[in-house]
């Protein structure tokens, strides 16, 4: 056992050549965490109790599981997968491990659009991800344009600072909306920190098309994504239309971030924490990175949301603030290690 651990620590990317192992481990983890989450709550069911409740129509807990806990777990998993893959894609596009949709204004752009849609077009619930995508696309285009210098790599500070500025503007807009529609302020507050409270099948139906679409597009782009690991001159030389690929990938990342935002609000840091952790294990190639990020993000948000609704029960915390408490320090560590001076 000790030898295995030592070999693991010595290897640069222990699972780079065996990404299937990572996928299997994370998949098993996700199933276990989901099953655990289903048993937890105001009424703790236990494993056998849950199984019975799951399949026996007459069981008193049947409805609780099917209508409350299951859909919420599924939404948490989908939101986590979307945010995490969106983060991985953004990091590749701007060649910066600190780029995360929630840090550089992409989620905030989706959030402003989603809030406006909820206020002004309340009937269009199912179009919410698409409308949010519009907002996310505008802010990611702004950030790309601002950081699109002719130097080889976009400087790590430049992209983060442009994002911070864009984010500040968007949060000001959200603040204004909250002020103007003060009667709805409580739900706005939950939206701004990111919460899965009350998520049901309807949210699952809202998020699924955009999430599945975005994840599939990410999955079929893994080869061009790998080429974006090279500098533009080199990747262009081997035949990659660099700008077009960048635009396409940022659009996919925006779609995924928008899908998550439209059901969970501004949940942050998932796209920063998961890809950076996963990359250390499976390496930077996207055929391994995209699936492990999706599963890892799903696992993280399912666990975090389970904690959010049970730790201080009956008080329920917004999952977004838990994730920020975890992600903020992680971001500082990355910043500390990555930026010289």
């Amino acid at each position, binding site marked *: 056992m000790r030898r295995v651990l030592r070999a693991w620590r010595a290897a640069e990317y222990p699972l780079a050549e065996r990404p299937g192992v990572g996928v299997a481990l994370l998949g098993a983890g996700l199933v276990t965490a989901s099953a655990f989450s289903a048993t937890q709550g105001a009424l703790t069911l236990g494993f056998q109790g849950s199984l019975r409740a799951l399949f026996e129509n007459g069981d008193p807990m049947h409805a609780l599981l099917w209508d409350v806990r299951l859909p919420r777990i599924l939404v948490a998993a989908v939101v986590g997968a979307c945010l995490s893959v969106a983060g991985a894609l953004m990091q590749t596009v701007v060649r910066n491990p600190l780029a995360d949709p929630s840090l550089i204004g992409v989620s905030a752009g989706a959030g402003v659009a989603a809030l406006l849609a909820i206020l002004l077009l309340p009937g269009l619930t199912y179009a919410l991800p698409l409308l949010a995508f519009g907002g996310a696309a505008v802010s990611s285009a702004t950030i790309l344009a601002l950081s699109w210098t002719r130097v080889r790599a976009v400087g790590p500070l430049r992209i983060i600072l442009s994002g911070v500025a864009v984010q500040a503007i968007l949060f000001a807009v959200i603040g204004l909306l909250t002020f103007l529609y003060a009667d709805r302020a409580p739900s706005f507050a939950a939206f701004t920190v990111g919460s899965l409270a009350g998520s049901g099948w309807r949210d699952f139906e809202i998020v699924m098309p955009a999430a599945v679409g975005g994840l599939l597009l990410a999955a079929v782009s893994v080869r061009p994504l790998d080429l974006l690991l090279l500098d533009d001159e080199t990747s262009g030389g081997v035949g990659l239309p660099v700008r077009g690929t960048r635009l396409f990938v940022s659009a996919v990342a925006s779609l995924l971030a928008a899908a998550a935002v439209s059901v969970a609000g501004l949940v942050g840091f998932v796209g920063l924490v998961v890809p950076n952790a996963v990359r250390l294990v499976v390496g930077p*190639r996207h055929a391994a990175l995209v699936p492990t990020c999706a599963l890892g993000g799903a696992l993280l948000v399912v666990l975090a949301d389970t904690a959010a609704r049970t730790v201080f029960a009956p008080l329920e915390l917004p999952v977004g603030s838990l994730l920020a408490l975890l992600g903020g320090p992680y971001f500082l560590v990355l910043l500390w290690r990555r930026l010289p001076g």
Partner: protein
Amino acid sequence: MTAPILRVERATVRVPGSTHDAVRDVCLDIERGETVALVGPNGSGKSTTLAALAGALHPRVGRVLLAGDDVRSYSRRALARLVARLPQDPATPEGVTVEHVVRFGRHAHSSTLRGTDHAGAAAVERALSLVGVADLRRRTMETLSGGERRRAWLAMILAQEAEVILLDEPTASLDLRHQLELLSLVGDLGRRLSRTVVIVLHDLDHAVQVAHRVVLLHRGRLYRHGPARDCLDADALRDVFGVRGHITADPDEPRLAIQGLADPRRRF
């Protein structure tokens, strides 16, 4: 007589972000199967000319024709199947193994979904062994020495199996043995594999050894071109490089002999 594989027509090229033209009014034909060395002092426009030949920079005035058509009319993919260029100093991708870098060279030949096919895998193997990095295939790029990394990049563009190969100072940061190996490989590319090679070289001696023809650039203009013996004569060495020297007479193995500064009192 067939058309030249590459033709530069009165090209004036500016590097993006710069305020002056790095290459001015250059005309140049490159024939199929030729090995051409681009030489000149620092800042004479060698790399810029090479980038224009690769279609990576477009001339502000004039144009570059590849197999008779304007390079701008090619898609990135179609261009990459005909022309492969080794840039001067590619950024090192962290965590990517040598084998995967070499496979990137197959991008223009492979489908986005299915990736590299059998022929492609064979081309990758050939390229790995041609530049002697097969042993390094599982190493990640950032763990290699400068020279090893350079050879890995070279293997990548060889895997591209393009007809035209453009090399920007491929011998830089290589040790002596690998410099000579690389020059012999360049010779093979031309002779055995009948590729067209355009190579930017700093070392005139290397140019004399390897090239059919030398293109001498001076301050962004074409100073002179032709066989090394004629091109790099005492006048050119004095006027362009500011050194005294000549090419030794032995016609089988021409060598460059440099005696010293043309004007020893002037430094920098």
